[in-house]
């Protein structure tokens, strides 16, 4: 499967899950996973779930502007670099963000089943 397609599928799934069912995001992490969120470090599913569940907004909408990916090494896996914006309420200004993820083969297999509905990354607003 084309790595760029895999990266875009992963990014689409990640932010769709973030926006619609944030508690389910923890299923993409393992106990060796690490999250650094605005400079704070968290390791393992419990700590990561705790951080994602305690963000100071209930609803959010991500708009993805760019997705770059590169293979990360001989054992598979990839580096995915995302930029976009997040809006945490209809009256709120969107905040720009960048994020780096390292999906590993287990996470990629998670996405390999044909989706019942395909979603492409949202186009950015002008």
């Amino acid at each position: 499967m084309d790595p760029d397609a895999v990266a875009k599928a992963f990014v689409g799934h990640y932010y769709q899950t973030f926006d619609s069912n944030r508690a389910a995001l923890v299923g993409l992490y393992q106990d060796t996973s690490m999250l650094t969120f605005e400079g704070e470090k968290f390791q393992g599913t419990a700590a990561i779930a705790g951080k994602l569940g305690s963000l100071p907004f209930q609803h959010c909408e991500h708009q993805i502007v760019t997705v770059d990916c590169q293979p990360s090494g001989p054992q598979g896996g990839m580096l995915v670099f995302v930029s976009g914006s997040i809006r945490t309420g209809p009256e709120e200004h969107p905040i720009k963000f960048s994020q780096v993820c390292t999906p590993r083969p287990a996470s990629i297999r998670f996405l390999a089943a044909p989706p019942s509905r395909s979603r492409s990354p949202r186009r950015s607003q002008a």
Partner: protein
Amino acid sequence: MDGQGQPGSGSGGAGSDCDAVARAFVEYYYNTFDANRGALAALYGHTSMLSFEGHAVGGAEEIGRKLAQLPFDQGRHSICTVDCQPSPSLPGSILVFVSGNLQLAGEEHQLRFSQMFQLVPNEQGSFFVQNDIFRLNYG
């Protein structure tokens, strides 16, 4: 696959080693970029990859050429944030995530950018840049 040199829970020790390497690398990288861009190619190897604003090149020679051909002669990077994590890909490798500003000579406004690196240990006890992704942040 799991574990490969990853620290166990409570990775304070490995985390702080990674922080020191990341900060030293970032300082060296951007000082070199601004003062002597041609020397940057020595940080890359034949398996290295650079994606610069969506354009991908591979290998130290191509990367050096890409950096030399950027449409500005002089710039000054100022770094706002540096984050790092041990990389899951290879033992001893490090992911570095940088955000900052780039002031180009003759331009009134700074450009905001984000950049990520994967640093991999080399035989000399230092690191080379295996992966490099750069994006300007517009708006």
